[in-house]
């Protein structure tokens, strides 16, 4: 192995460390199984929410559940890959209002209560999702 390729390998390792650095939120959410379960409850909450259900009339719910699970896993520092479209592309043209965004987040809050996620864990996930507000609302 040449010096160059060693340096390259080390650099690669370093670059990939952040994703392993902190998976505490992932653990708190119960790992893969916990997140998948939570997203199922979440999707059911959305499905019974009159304020926003009209947006999801043509949505493939299985796919949505799978992609939400992947995405939350990544956000939480878990060993996953998000394979969906980026947030702006997905939500462009939907004219999602601020109130609708809040409604969806409330559905997540309800889901987390149902799944008995501790408040401190809820807050960590909510804060991460709140960051995406501008990538979802008013597009």
């Amino acid at each position, binding site marked *: 192995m040449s010096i160059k390729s060693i340096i390259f390998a080390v650099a690669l390792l370093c670059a990939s460390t952040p994703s392993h650095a902190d998976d505490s939120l992932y653990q708190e959410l119960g790992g893969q199984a916990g997140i998948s379960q939570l997203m199922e409850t979440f999707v059911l909450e959305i499905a019974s929410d009159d304020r926003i259900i009209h947006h999801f009339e043509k949505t493939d719910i299985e796919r949505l559940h799978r992609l939400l699970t992947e995405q939350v896993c990544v956000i939480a520092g878990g060993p996953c890959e998000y394979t969906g479209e980026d947030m702006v592309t997905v939500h462009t043209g939907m004219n999602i*209002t*601020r*109130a609708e965004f*809040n*409604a969806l*987040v*409330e559905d997540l*809050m309800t889901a987390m209560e149902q799944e008995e996620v501790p*408040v*401190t*864990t809820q*807050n*960590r996930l*909510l*804060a*991460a999702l*709140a960051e995406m*507000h*501008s990538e979802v609302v008013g597009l």
Partner: protein
Amino acid sequence: MRHNLLISSLLASAAFIAMPAEADQGRFIATGGATSIEGSAGGGIVPWATLSSYAEEGQWGATAAVTEVSVDDFRLSVLGVSLTYDNRFELSAAKQTFDLSTIGGELKQDVFGVKYRVAGDLIYGDLPQFSVGLQHKRNSTFALPSAVGAQSDSGTDYYVSAAKVWLDGPFHRTWLANITLRATKANQIGLLGFGGDQNNDYEIQPEVAVGMFINRNWAVGAEYRTKPDNLGFAEEHDWYDIFVAYFPTKSVSVVAAYADLDSIAGLADQTGWYLSLQATF
């Protein structure tokens, strides 16, 4: 007080019945705050940058509240109502009755408030929520204030406020902070009139509030409000309170607090309790 209790229970039941079909509830629970003693959305003694009710963009909301503050020698009763549109404009009105339990008699004033959200958002983005507002106050019992040196029976406070919520704040709890700068001539918030023998100019008074949510329905916090000192007959002091707020639903909320109003009209150590019940429509 009995009257207020009756009204408050009526309000509460009306809110329960009216909900949730009629109200536009586009914001998270508790983000409407409580009704402050001057009628504006806020905490207890400080108006916050937050707008009343849960109205988001394009939505309407309203609140009604009764508040009682009971300290050693005085009792303050407040009826307050507010209307919010678009999470941007807030109109409010409050009727204050200040019972001079020990001295005898009462002081009364009406407060009309307007608040406008200028920029930013309480929860999303990096900017805090900035609001500007005014409170126009009319004292209808000016004989006593005038006798102790007050210059006017009405006055207008102007304020700017900034508020921010950290969903994932210290200890992974949700926190709120608010700072308000108020330009005012009011003596004891206007109950003792406006301007005085010692000072008749506007002064800028900072007011702050900090709160922590234990969960989505319960919050604890404290507020501190500085006040001018315009009257020679008795020194006026800052106020503070330590509160517990309960938001069981988006329709009703209750705030209980310990209030320290220091000395008022020369009567020292006015501490006691504060209780406020709010219905949101």
